[in-house]
């Protein structure tokens, strides 16, 4: 009896919540729209002002690049921190706090810092702050996750192992000049080098082991960016105020509030002006586009989706991949699986059209992306898929409507997808249905969408249920695809091993590749190889979407995000 009333009450509560959401939404929309039309004509910038950025998970509150773990902390650090280089709209690395020269042997980089750059506490930035950061991260007591960013420096490993007191490859020349020598010549040494100085004076006297938990990192952080942390309310918001001595010029806004809201109320919050800017997902867009005072900005991002196909297993000890499963070894089969999927229809249906079909795994925004004319387009063609299957010997022998493999054995695919967003069920179903339609029997692995963390574990452990699996990946600004597709890469979840693949990927990082044209040529070759082999089924590249209130101006959006030059943000009311 007690339980019954509990359920009834909770059901009632849920319904009343729906109703409440509908009501408040409608009322405020009316008012907002009227008010907005008036001020749209007078779009003059006003001085100061406060802007609210919404995030859907709470920040952890670790405001130091070397220690942060959550993506939200990273967003806050984008406001408060500063970097040696920045990534421009074409995803190339440009000098920011420092410029650099590369030695003849390509092993030593000499950095020249800008003079007069101030930390939030008034101290001046010198190369010692950067040296301090690098030394800290190579310290055996460093408990953050980013040793790999200093690993390439000569002598960093020795320090990490306790064999040296300092990193051999760092030489301070004067207050503004520093030389870094790397262990081996690699094209992306710079991209892989830690680029964030640490406030040495601020952290003085704190043991490396205690740094991540210290008050200086958690509640009283000091950075170089246009905004500094004013107050932190855990789980609710972080308030930032402008730093007037910012080296690129005084920020136009007074305050930025990074506020935590629930994803389900995101549209409402944008609508009633509670939130000025946030990242949005495709199924929010249709509703947002109807609001006059909200603009939806989109840009081709660095994220993409694909269907992985399992070729083998990973030997975790030896850190190598072995292709010992024959299921997908037939290239025509893989081509058929791709031809069977109507990718454009899926983008329209499940991503509100906010995606772009692609045929390799290099998002088009990268400068190394191959021209589409050089690639096979694999347009939706179920008839061709069936022909390819028949040609490869996959025929329906026993008359059950599904093909058997060339040996006449039953053939079926177990396809896995993770749980989350409400559109995932349809997406998984659509893929399964496409393959069933061409006669390849496909079932949903485990019978239901798999919880996300469990799914990732299953992928890592080569779970048998995931013969084919849905994957989404964000590449970051370094175009090198080795992390996900090199033969022995840990994240090469399909365990695809191909000699030509590794040859090209290594070639693209070789000394010859310092010539940009050559490097691009090699990557185009690699993309052609991928496009021909289809070791995984490329689906689409994602568009990054942002909902922005029109009162907020000056936001510069590019493939890496929306937080470039935030000191130029301003409001018009």
């Amino acid at each position, binding site marked *: 009896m007690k*339980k019954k009333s509990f359920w009834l009450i909770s059901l009632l509560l849920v319904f009343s919540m*729906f109703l409440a959401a509908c009501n408040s939404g409608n009322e405020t929309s009316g008012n907002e729209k009227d008010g907005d039309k008036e001020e749209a004509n007078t779009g003059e910038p006003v001085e100061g002002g406060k802007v609210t950025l919404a995030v859907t998970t709470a920040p952890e509150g670790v405001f130091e690049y070397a220690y942060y773990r959550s993506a939200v902390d990273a967003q806050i650090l984008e406001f408060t921190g500063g970097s040696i280089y920045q990534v421009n709209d074409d995803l190339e690395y440009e000098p920011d706090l420092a410029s650099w020269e590369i030695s003849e042997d390509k092993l030593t980089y000499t950095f020249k810092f800008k003079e007069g750059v101030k930390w939030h506490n008034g101290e001046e930035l010198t190369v010692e702050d950067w040296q301090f950061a690098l030394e800290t991260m190579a310290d055996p007591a460093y408990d953050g996750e980013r040793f790999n960013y200093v690993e390439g420096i000569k002598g960093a490993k020795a320090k990490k192992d306790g064999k040296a007191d300092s990193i051999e490859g760092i030489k301070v020349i004067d207050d503004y000049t520093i030389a870094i020598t790397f262990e081996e010549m690699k094209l992306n040494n710079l991209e892989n080098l830690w680029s964030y100085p640490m406030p040495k004076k601020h952290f003085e006297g704190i043991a490396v082991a205690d740094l991540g938990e210290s008050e200086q990192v958690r509640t009283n952080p000091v950075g170089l960016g246009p905004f500094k942390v004013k107050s932190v309310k855990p789980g609710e918001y972080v308030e930032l105020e402008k730093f007037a001595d910012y080296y690129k010029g005084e920020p136009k806004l007074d305050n930025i509030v990074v506020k935590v809201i629930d994803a389900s109320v995101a*549209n409402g919050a944008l609508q009633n002006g509670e939130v000025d800017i946030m990242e949005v997902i495709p199924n929010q867009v249709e*509703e947002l586009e109807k609001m006059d005072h909200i603009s939806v900005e989109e840009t081709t991002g660095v994220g993409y989706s694909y269907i992985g196909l399992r070729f083998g297993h990973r030997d975790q000890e030896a850190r190598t991949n072995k292709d010992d499963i024959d299921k997908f070894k037939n290239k025509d089969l893989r081509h058929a699986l791709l031809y069977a999927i109507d990718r454009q229809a899926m983008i329209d249906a499940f991503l509100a059209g906010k995606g772009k079909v692609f045929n390799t795994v290099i998002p088009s925004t990268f400068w190394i992306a191959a021209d589409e004319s050089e690639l096979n387009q694999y347009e939706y063609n179920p008839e061709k898929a069936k022909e390819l299957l028949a040609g490869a010997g996959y025929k329906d022998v026993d008359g059950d409507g599904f093909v058997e493999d060339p040996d006449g054995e039953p053939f079926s695919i177990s396809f896995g997808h993770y749980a989350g967003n409400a559109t995932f*069920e*349809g997406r998984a*179903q659509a893929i399964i249905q496409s393959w069933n339609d061409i006669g390849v029997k496909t079932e949903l692995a485990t*019978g239901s969408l798999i*919880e996300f963390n469990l799914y990732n574990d299953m992928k890592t452990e080569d779970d048998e249920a995931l013969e084919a699996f849905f994957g989404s990946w964000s590449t970051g600004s370094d175009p090198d695809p080795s992390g996900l597709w090199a033969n022995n890469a840990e994240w090469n979840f399909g365990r695809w091993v191909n000699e030509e693949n590794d040859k090209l990927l290594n070639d693209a990082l070789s000394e010859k590749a310092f010539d940009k044209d050559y490097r691009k040529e090699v990557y185009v070759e690699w993309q052609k190889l991928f496009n021909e082999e289809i070791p995984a089924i490329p689906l689409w590249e994602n568009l990054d979407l942002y909902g922005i209130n029109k009162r907020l101006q000056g936001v510069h959006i590019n493939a890496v995000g929306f937080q470039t030059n935030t000191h130029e943000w301003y409001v018009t009311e």
Partner: protein
Amino acid sequence: MVKASLNTDGQVLIKNKQKQFSPWKLARKKFLKNKIAMTSLIVFVSFVLIAVFGPLFTTQDITRINFMSMNLPPSAEHWFGTDTNGRDIFTRMVYGARTSLLIGLSCMTFIIVIGTIVGAIAGYNGGKIDQIFMRITDFVLNFPFLVFVIVLNTILVGKVSGVWTLILVISLLSWGGVARIVRSRFLSEKENEYVLAAKSIGTRPIKIIGKHILPNVASTIIVQATLMLAVTIVAEAGLSFLGSGVPANIPSWGNMLFEARDSDVLRNKTWIWVPPAAAITITILAINFIGEGIKDALNPKSRR
């Protein structure tokens, strides 16, 4: 004290026996006169009939994603419209009724069987056995239901086929309340003279429990059963709404509600989630009214 209660109970029993109508006939008469309960019964039975026979008449494919007909409002072709995956909502409602009612009825059966057995053994024997059984019951009652169901369901996924995992998990976690009530009824019932009489002529305990006491506590169990039916249907809907109930490709009312988690669907595409929500509400109300009706009908003291 014990004797006194024995006497009065015994007299009531004898009086009933002397009348022309058996207590069951009386109850049926009373129930038929209860308008709310009868309406509810008709509604519920028609839902069950639709669930059982409806799928024989529907023409639409319930799982096929149809890119051409997504999010269509209700029309002559699609009576209740289509959902975000282009599937006919009316057809899914019919199949969903099948799943939801199957889960409700199966869980109810399991719960009542387990609860009655445990309660009967504990209540009849008393003493140490009672203690042991009741501690186990307390243990089950103390599980945080929702959390535990979600965890168990995740562990069992892939090992037992979808819907039956859920039925098993819900049943195993919900019999505690029934066991308690049955036990308390048994405790008071076994002190009656007819039990004493049966015992004294050497009837086996299992026969006493099954043939003598159980019919006398049946009314309580039946009322409990209707309540459990309602509870489990809501539990299924709640769990599926949270995404850890019935596998996503099997339509159930809860799974259909899942789509309402998208704010756009919630605000602008009401036809997608109103039908399953309404169906759940109506079913639960109907079952509860039926339960109340039965309780009234079986209660000799009510004069309605």
